[in-house]
């Protein structure tokens, strides 16, 4: 075919006559793409080529419009209780030795996709870690097969070899040791006992963080090494020394629930909360009085508190000049305690036996036992005793140990002396790991028996005395894994059916502890249905408070205090709300969840007071382009290099480092999201090609004293380095800068005794009145440019109680899970392109306001800049207070975003929702610009496909994609998205009511955030339903709308924060 048109075109004289003139600095590599004769021989000219190309493209475009054939595969034999498209909910229990909660697991077509608290039965309180645990089920990096000597094997091979090896070691008379975390599971304990009996083995409990001092102290005081139940809901005064009980201390979910009950200002009383701590913790940020102290100072403060209480109660006073110096710090707390003696609570987070004894003595003097502290119904969390671990190490050193089985523990990562342990571990003849991942410990084991995820497992628990719980599988095992209990039973030559075992155990042991059910099987079925059962257990008998030599303890404590007064900083290790002890490191939802205090994501850092940072000339201002300084901390030859984060509220002279980071230092297969990624995808690697872990492992900084392992150390040196490090934070401003209508805060006394205008004044507007010839003050709600929306039934709204919001972030992860919110990774977060539909703003208090600035003469143009700069700085650490404010789309009735959308992609519904229609959006982003609350999120990338997000976004994973909620569209690149107020749940709830022909019950519909909130701070409801809960809250005295003066008339109401302080 001759396509040549034989036409010549004028080329322009420059091309012919001045060949040196070139647009390109380099010669185009023409000969590369013109090499070969095919092109020269071709009769096809450029124009022809373009013609055919054009035709081809349009033809291809038209052809691609042909609908792809969609396949549909129904069940062959449909399970009776599964209806495609309808969710099934199963009651189960989450317990990992750290977090404990009764959960409801939402499954769709057999896939667990969402976790919600089981508020009806059991401890229905969740935190972010439990919410996000559903995602880890689908982690493709979990162990998928048994491993023998580094290679995938069958269960038969593994079982045969393990049994032979165990029998041989037993015959040799060497020790077989089974390491587990705190099980708190009666049937698992029975399985362990069976195994222990079969092989004469030894069972050692190992937790990531020890609370053994409390047990030891209680043993000394009451004769039993137990942990009592604490009742924060009954305490009118709560004094905490470094106990981060809302996040980390004992059963944090139970504490949170109780704490919130005592913090309701609508009640007659509201608890007064005093927190003494160095790091600004979640708990400390919620305190009415937060007194920053170094850990060593806390030692004295506890003694000083004892003295004041003892003086008032007529007990002996501890001698010591140092103690008296601290009395002024604890005076207010002591007076409050004395005023509420018997209805107060003193708790201490230090793993220090003497301190815990003193705290017990204080509680005893106040008469708090049997009131707010229940010794007779203890809790079974944190059972690790350091002595047992040390004894094990001794035995290993003496080569007495022939086999070590690790089940769900990771000593190679979190043991403070991990290196020593692992050296000995490698020399042990037989090492077996029962593990989810081929982690730091398992990768060194000879045999790995992969275990089920908790959503695939059976289990029972008794974490609180008499309160039993059951966990059941909500999906068949995804991989070739086996329940750990079944493995142990197999190796003990027992029937491996753990389901049968647990059922039999439950019926035989627990059935008799109740009299409600008469049929054992019905009892089992009902317990399983509810996920828990409260059974009659005999209370634990304890002896009366022992008469201990407190003075001797005090002398020892004061001596320790003196010893801690070294050059350098006091280091306080802590566990973050997101990653906890590090077991969730592979969970991108948790990695991306901003820390409640620093709002930093995907990272570990040294928290340091900005004033201290200035001494070292560290950078205190950071943003998306400005990096932080990196410093090295040193003690006893141990070093750790991390960026230094300016942490307001951190006690001067102390630094904080989070545990739970630096997992996978030797490139273990612990999850895709556990390693640092590059700007355009792929992992960051060191010179040897090893992937770099996120953050650094600080567990070896855990101080090993004779008595117990503590999380704080004195005398830590901070050495600056030349390096800098970019940090990704979702909030880089700290205060509200004297803007009155963002946050409202008052005291309990004001709220109870004064008029609304004192603590929640209405926003007014001055309007010129023609009649009066003067300005009139009118309520802002009356001034409106727009007509009201017609009312045809519902008007959905949210009320958020700033008083009970503890800033934990459970709502944010619940939202992420429910609404398929994409994970974007550190680099995008740093560029302020986070996709959270619900964020929690954290504001520090600042004393500096416009009035003060006026007095200082900071006005005028130049003065104003300085004024605003001063306003940005939070107040001094001693008076620093924190408010958390969850912010989602405010669903404004007169939404600024709606009026600017050129394609009407965001519109208002007759039910008060601000709707976002993704398929209509063309991505102009006008709406985001016009949103005063900055809650709109733009899809800059195709997060589910672009290589940059391959490591961080779970939707790029074949398995993890199964966690997506099928009722919510996955948004594509180039469209705007935002909180929909869980419109899919609203629609589903309405549909149920319509189908049944019943009126919609208040509370029948819950948004993901309102359901997940552990303190019930978020209430969802119909503002047009006059009997609804939300109406009482949203139209109550404390309610206000954020930035009301803008006139958006939002449907989200905030309730004024109330502090119980003078």
């Amino acid at each position: 075919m001759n396509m040549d048109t034989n036409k010549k075109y004028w080329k322009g004289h420059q091309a012919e006559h001045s060949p040196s003139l070139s647009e390109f600095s380099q010669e185009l590599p023409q000969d590369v793409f013109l090499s070969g004769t095919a092109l020269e021989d071709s009769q096809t000219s450029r124009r022809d080529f373009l013609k055919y190309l054009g035709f081809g493209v349009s033809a291809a475009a038209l052809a691609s419009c042909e609908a792809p054939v969609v396949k549909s595969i129904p069940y062959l034999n449909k399970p009776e209780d599964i209806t495609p498209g309808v969710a099934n909910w199963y009651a189960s229990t989450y317990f990992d030795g750290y977090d404990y909660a009764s959960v409801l697991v939402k499954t769709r077509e057999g896939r667990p996709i969402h976790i919600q608290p089981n508020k009806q039965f059991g401890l229905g309180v969740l935190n972010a870690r439990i919410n996000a645990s559903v995602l880890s089920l689908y982690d493709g990096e979990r162990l998928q097969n048994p491993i023998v000597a580094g290679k995938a094997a069958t269960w038969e091979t593994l079982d045969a070899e393990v049994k032979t090896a165990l029998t041989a070691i037993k015959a040799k008379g060497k020790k077989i040791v089974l390491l587990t975390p705190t099980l708190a599971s009666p049937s698992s304990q029975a399985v362990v006992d069976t195994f222990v009996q079969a092989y004469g083995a030894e069972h050692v409990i190992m937790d990531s963080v020890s609370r053994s001092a409390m047990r030891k102290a209680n043993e000394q005081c009451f004769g039993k090494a137990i942990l009592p139940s604490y009742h924060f809901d009954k305490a009118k005064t709560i004094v905490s020394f470094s106990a981060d009980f809302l996040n980390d201390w004992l059963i944090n979910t139970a504490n949170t629930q109780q704490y919130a009950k005592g913090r309701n200002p609508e009640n007659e009383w509201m608890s007064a909360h005093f927190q003494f701590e160095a790091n600004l913790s979640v708990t400390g940020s919620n305190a009415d009085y937060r007194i920053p102290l170094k850990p060593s100072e806390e030692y004295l403060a506890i003694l000083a508190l004892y003295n004041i209480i003892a003086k008032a109660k007529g007990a002996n006073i501890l001698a010591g000049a140092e103690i008296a110096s601290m009395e002024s710090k604890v005076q207010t707390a002591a007076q409050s305690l004395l005023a509420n003696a018997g209805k107060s609570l003193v708790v201490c987070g230090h793993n220090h036996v003497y301190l815990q004894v003193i705290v017990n003595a204080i509680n005893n003097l106040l008469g708090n036992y049997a009131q707010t502290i229940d010794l007779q119904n203890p809790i079974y969390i944190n059972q690790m005793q350091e002595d047992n671990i040390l004894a094990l190490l001794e035995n290993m050193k003496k080569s007495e140990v022939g086999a070590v089985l690790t089940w769900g523990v990771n000593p190679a990562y979190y043991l403070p002396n991990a290196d020593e342990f692992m050296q000995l571990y490698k020399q042990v003849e037989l090492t077996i790991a029962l593990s989810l991942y081929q982690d730091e410990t398992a990768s060194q084991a000879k045999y790995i028996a992969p275990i089920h995820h908790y959503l695939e497992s059976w289990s029972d628990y008794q974490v609180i005395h008499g309160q039993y719980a059951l966990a059941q599988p909500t999906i068949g095992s995804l991989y070739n894994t086996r329940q750990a209990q079944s493995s142990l039973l197999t190796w003990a030559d027992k029937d491996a059916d753990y389901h049968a075992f647990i059922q039999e155990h439950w019926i035989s042991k627990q059935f008799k502890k109740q009299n409600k059910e008469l049929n054992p099987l019905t009892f089992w079925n009902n317990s399983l249905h509810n996920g828990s059962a409260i059974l009659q257990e005999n209370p634990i008998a304890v002896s009366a408070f022992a008469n201990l030599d407190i003075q001797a303890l005090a002398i020892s404590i004061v001596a320790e205090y003196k010893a801690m007064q070294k050059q350098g900083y006091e280091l306080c290790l802590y566990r973050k709300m997101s990653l906890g002890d590090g077991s969730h490191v592979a969970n991108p939802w948790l990695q991306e969840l901003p820390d409640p205090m620093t709002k930093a994501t995907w990272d570990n850092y040294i928290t340091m007071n900005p004033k201290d940072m200035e001494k070292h000339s560290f950078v205190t201002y950071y943003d998306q382009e400005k990096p932080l300084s990196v410093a090295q901390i040193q003690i006893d030859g141990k070093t750790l290099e991390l960026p230094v984060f300016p942490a307001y509220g951190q006690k001067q002279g102390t630094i904080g480092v989070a545990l739970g980071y630096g997992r996978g230092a030797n490139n273990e297969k612990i999850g895709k999201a556990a390693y640092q990624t590059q700007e355009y995808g792929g992992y960051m690697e060191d010179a040897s090609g090893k992937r770099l872990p996120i953050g650094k492992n600080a567990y070896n900084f855990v101080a090993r004293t004779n008595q117990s392992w503590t999380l704080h150390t004195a005398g830590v040196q901070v050495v600056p380095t030349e390096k800098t490090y970019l940090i990704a934070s979702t909030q880089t401003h700290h205060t509200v800068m004297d803007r009155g209508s963002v946050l409202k805060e008052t005291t309990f006394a004001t709220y109870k005794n004064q008029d609304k205008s004192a603590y929640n004044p209405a926003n007014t507007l001055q309007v010129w009145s023609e009649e009066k010839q003067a300005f009139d003050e009118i309520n802002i709600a009356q001034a409106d440019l727009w007509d009201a929306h017609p009312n045809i039934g519902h008007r959905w709204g949210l009320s958020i109680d700033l008083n009970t919001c503890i800033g934990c972030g459970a709502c944010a992860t619940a939202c992420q899970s429910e609404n398929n919110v994409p994970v974007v990774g550190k680099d995008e977060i740093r560029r302020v392109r986070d996709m959270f539909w619900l964020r929690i703003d954290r504001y520090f208090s600042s004393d500096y306001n416009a009035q003060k600035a006026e007095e200082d003469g900071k006005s005028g143009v130049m003065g104003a800049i300085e004024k605003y700069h001063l306003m940005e700085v939070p107040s001094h650490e001693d008076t620093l207070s924190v408010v958390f404010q969850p912010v989602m789309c405010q669903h404004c009735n007169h939404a600024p975003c709606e009026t600017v959308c050129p394609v009407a992609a965001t519109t208002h519904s007759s039910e008060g929702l601000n709707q976002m229609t993704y398929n209509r959006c063309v991505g102009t982003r006008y709406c985001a610009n016009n949103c005063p609350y900055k809650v709109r999120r733009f899809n800059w990338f195709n997060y589910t496909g672009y290589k940059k997000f391959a490591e961080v976004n779970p939707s790029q994973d074949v398995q993890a994609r199964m966690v997506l909620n099928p009722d919510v569209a996955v948004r594509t690149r180039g469209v705007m998205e935002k909180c929909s107020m869980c419109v899919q749940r609203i629609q589903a709830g309405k549909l149920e009511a319509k189908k049944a022909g019943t009126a919609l019950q208040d509370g029948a519909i819950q948004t993901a955030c309102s359901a997940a909130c552990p303190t019930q701070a978020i209430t969802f409801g119909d503002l047009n339903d006059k009997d609804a809960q939300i109406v009482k809250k949203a139209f109550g005295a404390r309610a206000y709308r954020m930035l009301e003066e803008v006139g958006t008339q939002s449907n989200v109401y905030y309730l004024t924060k109330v502090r119980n302080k003078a």
Partner: protein
Amino acid sequence: MRYKIPYKIVPLHLNYVLLHMHTDIIMKPLRIFFGILSGVLFFAQAQTIEEGEKLFKGNCAACHKVDVKEAVLVGPGLLKIRDRWQDKQELLKIWIKEPKKALATGDAYVKELWDMYPSEMPGQAVNDAEIDAILMYLDNPPVKKVAASAVVATEKDSDADNNWLVMLVLSGVLLIVYLVARSLGTQLEELAAKKRGDKHTHLSIFEEICLFVHHQKTWVVILSVVLGLMGAVRGYLALMQIGVYPGYHPTQPINFPHDVHTSKDMAGIECVYCHNSVEKSKHAGIPSANVCMNCHKGIQEGRNTGKSEIEKIYKAVNFSPKTMQYGNPKDAEPIVWNKVHNLPDHVYFNHSQHVVVGKIACQKCHGPVETMQTVSQYSPLTMGWCIDCHRETEVPGYTDEKNKYYRELHARMDNKSLQKMLEDDKVTVSELGGLECGKCHY
């Protein structure tokens, strides 16, 4: 699914008795009272038949037809079955509920039935009142009309196709006539020129067209504008049809005849029997193979394709029709159907909303499936099509006094909205917010 019968059943002749009573002045109010009562009872009876029909289709239709005894599906046809059992009505009930118990009574007729049909009659989970309703329906099954609108629509479409063909042929003929005439003219001209001895310079077609255009500028401009506009309109309409596939008719792995299964004069099974999640879920659901096996364990030969298609079900579930046994379920193979009605992923559509709340018949969107063999897409499934329906359709529950949801909604409504809504005397889906984006897109 089972239905509760809200009314007690009373024999009809009560009405008759009342009519023949003495017209006493005292009796009159009583008569009126009983008249109303019997009216209610009659209504109750009509309702009962309706309930019975539902129950029959839910429980019995898989194996029995509403036809004479000889019309065997799996079991015999059940029309007027009460007549057959005559004085053994109680035994009939036992037979329905617990066939083996009835067999144990040693009744000859039961024994005969038991032996006559190869498939065992399973016990039905229905109570006596429900059986009464079913039997009442079988005594007097109402005759229903079949919608015929769809057939008309398809005919119209084929008419339009014919018109195009006629036009095409016509223009072809005209073109040929023109070409013949033109070549004749040219030849004549050439002949004349030869006669005159001229050297002929005849114009090419292209040159002729140019000349024509040159002379007829105005008309050509008008014509091109008109043609251009027509082209634009047609092009726009064509583009709007991208992704719209009414009539999409994929081949299916099993040539499943909907007409045989659903049409009244054949099996007459209700749609909901197989697509049973339609009332509960957003998906109507493709029936699982075990639902097919409810009937096809017995019916091993179809009327159209014999054994070949039904055997595909057996293969899928690994069932041997010879031994009547299921094999290892691991060797079973799911059936991969081709989905006919596809909505884009960004649309949320809920079947139960439309079927239960909207009370819409399946045929409204899916067309006369009972006349289709394999199903093809009937409606365009465009957003415009959805919206049109939402604009016109009344919300059936809104006027229902018993529907507390809508009562509550109605009570809250402000006057202005209510007045606006009731301007046309009906409350449509759109007036309750059914046109808002967030109702289908989230």
